């Protein structure tokens, strides 16, 4: 019974495939795998927008949207109708073709990343043996579309926003990949399916997630910081920067193209969150052995929603970084820590299991943090600020 509930979508697909003639089977199989993803994740996007607005509202002691439908939950429908019926303005001097292609490319790239995400047991569109590599390769297409949008708009704000976005995304792609390398080292595989399967075992009631190792913990933290920056979310939302450069690279976009940018951005966020779940949080595996009767895909979405909630919480808390702070964080903190984390993963692999292994690995993390703390303390000078031009 539990087995059937877990595999219901897989069985349904097999049942449907039985009615398809042999010639059309490869195409039908692909369509049947892809269409649910194309429906489920935009739906999740719609739910997330309203949850985000309500959550941010509550953080700021407001109600948030509560007028459209029950408790404001029809807000995404209203937003969708609005963006569909709005006039689509293209600047006169813009490169028409590229201006149109940029949001389309962003959404396509964001969707491609879902091809290798295992949403449940036996539920992955393609089990590539270089799945993680494919994920990051597709993720870097986002940069291209952002630059296409910024350049083709022929606006200085667009270009500034695109430049910021490119600088930020390239800087954070390095730690993003390096943070996930530790998992590949331990799992010995680039396939997302086998990475999850390695984490799906239990010791007693406790799962074998990579989060519960020192390098997994550090790696997860670094991965999430880099993922936040990679998906242009607060506090790393400089490319958007509505208070400085209005809306960055999508200032010249209106109507449904603007909505597509939002969709692409959120889909990218879900994809990187899904990757974080796959690499560190055991993918579709249940958090305790006695909870395995709950279907695997439910666990995946529960984890995904938790991470989304965390993203919203962060967005409600932290102010936007300055450009130099952003770059310093990437190159002076996240990147060295990611390299150090690889060293820790190696040490962990070759030491005997036990408390000593934990202490050694944690010490390697703690020492640079303490040194950094002292360095920051020494550098901090309080003085009366003088303004050269304002007086």
């Amino acid at each position, binding site marked *: 019974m539990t087995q059937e509930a877990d595999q219901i979508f897989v069985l349904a697909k097999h049942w449907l495939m039985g009615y398809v003639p042999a010639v059309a089977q490869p195409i039908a199989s692909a369509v049947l795998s892809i269409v649910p993803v194309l429906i489920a994740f935009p739906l999740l996007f719609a739910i997330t927008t309203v949850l985000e607005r309500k959550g941010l509202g509550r953080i700021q*002691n407001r*109600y948030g949207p509560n007028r459209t439908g029950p408790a404001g939950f029809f807000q995404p429908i209203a937003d969708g109708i609005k963006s569909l019926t709005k006039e689509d303005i293209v600047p006169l001097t813009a490169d028409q073709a590229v201006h149109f292609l940029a949001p389309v490319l962003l959404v396509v790239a964001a969707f491609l990343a879902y091809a290798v995400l295992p949403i449940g047991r036996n539920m992955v569109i393609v089990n590539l043996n270089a799945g993680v590599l494919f994920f990051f390769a597709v993720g870097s297409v986002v940069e291209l579309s952002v630059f296409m949008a910024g350049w083709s708009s022929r606006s200085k704000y667009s270009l500034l926003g695109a430049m910021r976005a490119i600088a930020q995304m390239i800087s954070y792609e390095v730690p993003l990949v390096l943070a996930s390398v530790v998992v590949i080292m331990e799992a010995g595989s680039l396939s997302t399916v086998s990475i999850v399967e390695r984490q799906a075992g239990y010791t007693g009631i406790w799962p074998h997630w990579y989060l519960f190792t020192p390098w997994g913990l550090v790696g997860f933290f670094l991965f999430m910081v880099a993922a936040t920056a990679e998906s242009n979310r607060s506090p790393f939302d400089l490319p958007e920067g509505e208070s400085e450069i209005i809306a960055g690279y999508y200032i010249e976009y209106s109507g449904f193209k603007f909505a597509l940018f939002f969709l692409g951005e959120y889909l990218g966020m879900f994809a990187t969150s899904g990757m974080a779940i796959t690499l560190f949080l055991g993918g579709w595996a249940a958090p305790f052995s006695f909870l395995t009767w709950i279907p695997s895909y439910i666990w995946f979405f529960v984890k995904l929603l938790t991470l989304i909630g965390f993203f919203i*919480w*962060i967005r*409600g*808390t932290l102010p936007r970084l300055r450009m130099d702070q952003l770059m310093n964080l990437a190159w002076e903190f996240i990147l060295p820590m990611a390299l150090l984390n690889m060293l820790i993963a190696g040490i962990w692999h070759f030491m005997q299991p036990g408390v000593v292994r934990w202490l050694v690995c944690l010490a390697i993390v703690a020492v640079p*943090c303490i040194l950094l703390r002292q360095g920051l303390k020494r550098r901090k000078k309080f003085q009366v600020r003088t303004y050269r031009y304002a007086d």
Partner: protein
Amino acid sequence: MVGEGILKGMVETARNFLGSYVEKERLTTVQYPEERIPQVEAARNFPFLVYDGPNWQQGMRCVGCQICEKECPPKCIFIEKSKDKKPDAVGKPQFYPAVFNIDISVCMSCQICVEVCPFDAIKMDVEYDLPTDDRFGGLLLNKQKLSKSNEYYHEIHPTEASAVDGALAEERAKVKAAADAKAAAAPAKPLAPATAASPVSPTGETK
């Protein structure tokens, strides 16, 4: 520790998030169409015309002198003065505005019309909920829409209305006394151009 400040901030936002579900006083938002904040007495929005007694046409204080029309900075008042005279609230024959329109899409709520009116006929209303789906006709208020009773004026601005009533009563008593004295002294002259209470504005200068 590094990142201590971030943790502190996150605890603070979490407290706000959860607190907003528990403590009602955290949410300061007024859910507008259902809830409204009571207005202060000095609140003002658009002008209205005051009338005494039960009948708005008979009791209208306005005599169509057109001072407000001339003073109005954005020129949102349009008045057409009557040709004939009709008895006002106290029975005295007066001119009256045949047409009195205020375009509230133009009005800037400056209250100058109220300041210049010698008859206390135009006052500021507190009604702000005036949406309409006809942005030309619906926002052009005519004489009937503008007319509101003195009781309503007492309701929205009690202190000010009492002061105005007192001044008006005093003025009327003075006028009555002067008229009585004049009538007693020279009964032969019935058409004595009476008092300060009815300054004769130059007719025919409407524009």
